[in-house]
């Protein structure tokens, strides 16, 4: 178990490292990432210096990459030489993000650990992230929310896909023959189609509909989950976002755009019944009727709610059944489900569970990661 966790943590860190490199303009692909894993296995990982050199060897491909790598490494793993709490950025108070060029400090990179106001927390970004992953959203401090933002953005990029009717050239034989290329090829061989070439269907993003409960009981989670909604809308195509308390509001357009804070502000303005009561059934009814077209066939619908419902459970069951019939897959994220003694006792949850394909926790980064894994498998 411990080693698995460690491995996950390494994967996260390496992804962060490569992301940071890419943000600076280096070409780092999946191949390099895999190589980095192998490189770390090959050296003594308890030595920070060895790990750094190994990674540098794998991830840099030209001289200009070296300085980028140093920056990225510093961003992700922290700088061992700088004593705790003495970051030059602290004195600037949020200035560096605005003033310094993006190449230096990628706006999306996790903040250096020195920014942590609580010195007892964790010394290195490494374990910082690991702790965050399993921490309940409700217990997040403002700083942790900011730290988690990048992780959430990364999770939001992972979404469901489906086979498209569009095709692209493929090496594997057995799909549709690529007549276009065969004719071209035969021109060179005196009309004899010597080489067989094929086309295979490509993959496209599958439509996804996110429905967030923003009623009173969800308040501790709504803010972080709304971040996830925003990140999904920003990162992927074909994502629709809705929020509901007693009534349903479409917030896809509000959440669009790159400016994170403005987007969340706009969404909060659009939703008039923040922190009020809940009528899940009525909200889903309006989703099915008014926005039925958007849900459409083949969408993955994710409901993020604790299932506390003051509405009619019969209506909820009916609308869930309908939703499941029209959606490709129906996932329910319930922050309460993280509790070890969780049992779906609320009327709402009892009515809804028979109609959901997956029930996940949705209270922490780890659970969002679980969601990402499920989505990718679809």
């Amino acid at each position: 178990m411990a080693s698995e966790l460690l491995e996950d943590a390494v994967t996260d860190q390496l992804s962060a490292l490569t992301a940071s490199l890419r943000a600076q303009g280096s070409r780092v692909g999946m191949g390099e990432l895999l190589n980095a894993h192998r490189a770390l296995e090959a050296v003594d990982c308890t030595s920070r210096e060895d790990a750094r050199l190994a990674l540098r060897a794998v991830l840099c491909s030209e001289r200009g990459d070296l300085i980028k790598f140093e920056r990225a490494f510093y961003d992700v793993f922290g700088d061992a030489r700088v004593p705790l709490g003495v970051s030059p950025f602290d004195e600037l108070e949020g200035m560096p993000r605005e003033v310094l060029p993006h190449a230096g400090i990628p706006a999306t990179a996790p903040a250096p650990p020195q920014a942590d106001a609580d010195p007892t927390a964790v010394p290195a970004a490494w374990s910082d992230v690991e702790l965050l992953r399993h921490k309940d959203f409700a217990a997040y401090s403002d700083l942790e929310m900011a730290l988690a933002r990048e992780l959430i953005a990364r999770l939001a990029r992972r979404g469901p896909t489906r086979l498209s009717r569009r095709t692209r050239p493929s090496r594997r034989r057995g799909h549709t023959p690529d007549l276009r290329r065969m004719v071209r090829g035969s021109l060179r061989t005196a009309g004899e189609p010597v080489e067989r070439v094929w086309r295979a269907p490509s993959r496209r993003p599958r439509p996804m509909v996110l429905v967030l409960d923003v009623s009173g009981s969800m308040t501790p989670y709504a803010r972080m989950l709304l971040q996830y909604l925003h990140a999904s809308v920003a990162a992927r195509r074909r994502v629709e976002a809705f929020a509901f308390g007693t009534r349903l509001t479409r917030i896809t357009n509000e959440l669009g755009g790159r400016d994170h804070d403005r987007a969340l502000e706009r969404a909060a303005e659009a939703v008039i019944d923040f922190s009020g009561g809940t009528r899940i059934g009525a909200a889903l009814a309006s989703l099915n009727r008014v926005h039925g077209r958007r849900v459409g066939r083949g969408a993955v619908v994710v409901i993020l709610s604790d299932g506390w419902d003051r509405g009619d459970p019969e209506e909820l069951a009916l609308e869930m059944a309908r939703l499941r019939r029209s959606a490709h897959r129906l996932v329910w994220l319930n922050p309460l489900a993280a509790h070890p003694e969780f049992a779906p006792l609320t009327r709402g949850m009892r009515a809804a569970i028979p109609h959901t394909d997956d029930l996940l926790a949705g209270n922490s980064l780890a659970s969002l990661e679980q969601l990402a894994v499920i989505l990718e498998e679809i």
Partner: protein
Amino acid sequence: MTLTYVASVEEASEALASQGYLADRPLALAVHLAVALEQPLLLEGEAGVGKTEVARALAGATGARLIRLQCHEGIDVHHAVYDWDYPRQLLALRAAEGGVDEGELFSRRFLLRRPLLDALEADPANPVVLLIDEIDRADDEFEAFLLEFLADFAVTIPELGSVRAERPPVVILTSNRTRELHDALKRRCLYHWIDYPNAQLERAIVHARIPGVSETIANRVVTAVGRLREHGDLYKLPGVGETLVWARALLALGEDADLDETLGVALKVHEDVQRVRSRSVLDGV
């Protein structure tokens, strides 16, 4: 009447009416503008309000040729503009034992023309109404291509060069709003949302489209459909198309046939049918 004669809102309205399509003033105005400004018209609206019919009626009334491009998932340039007839090319290659040069192989002889190319190469003396149906089913890439196409009504075929329309066709796009279209495409188009017609207009539509239908039938059907649309608790509301089929059903069954029994003509979701029956929505119609 030809397209150049759709010179005013009234004439647009008359032109559509001559084909049994009764349009309200905003729609007639939109059609008039599309013709006058030579700008594409994007029509949105619920299913069955007659988006596609607008193009048909306009073409029918003006004697223009209707060219229809039905969009679908995965549609690309080779479905929409042109493709090469590869099997025939291969045959020609083999028959000539390689003695064919490339220019000959990629000449008009082996070109398959698809709707958009057809629309561009139409005889300017004989105008064209180009219907691009259900654009929301195509993907973003195709939408981007279409934006270019609509900007200058020209396409480039690498092997042949570029083809430009001598006279831009009247373009009508329809969307069912299964997804939001790109802003740039919307900006290029005139936009009109087709609403359900009011009762008076819908009765007129029934009479115009189904000759021989009695006043009673038209009244009953239009009232019934109106109630269903107002009911507000149905998954799928009946469109004008359903009204017409329902009227035809009553014409076949007799004026006083039971509406509840023929509900399946208008509603296609089981729960909706049940709900309407159990709440006696159609009582007294």
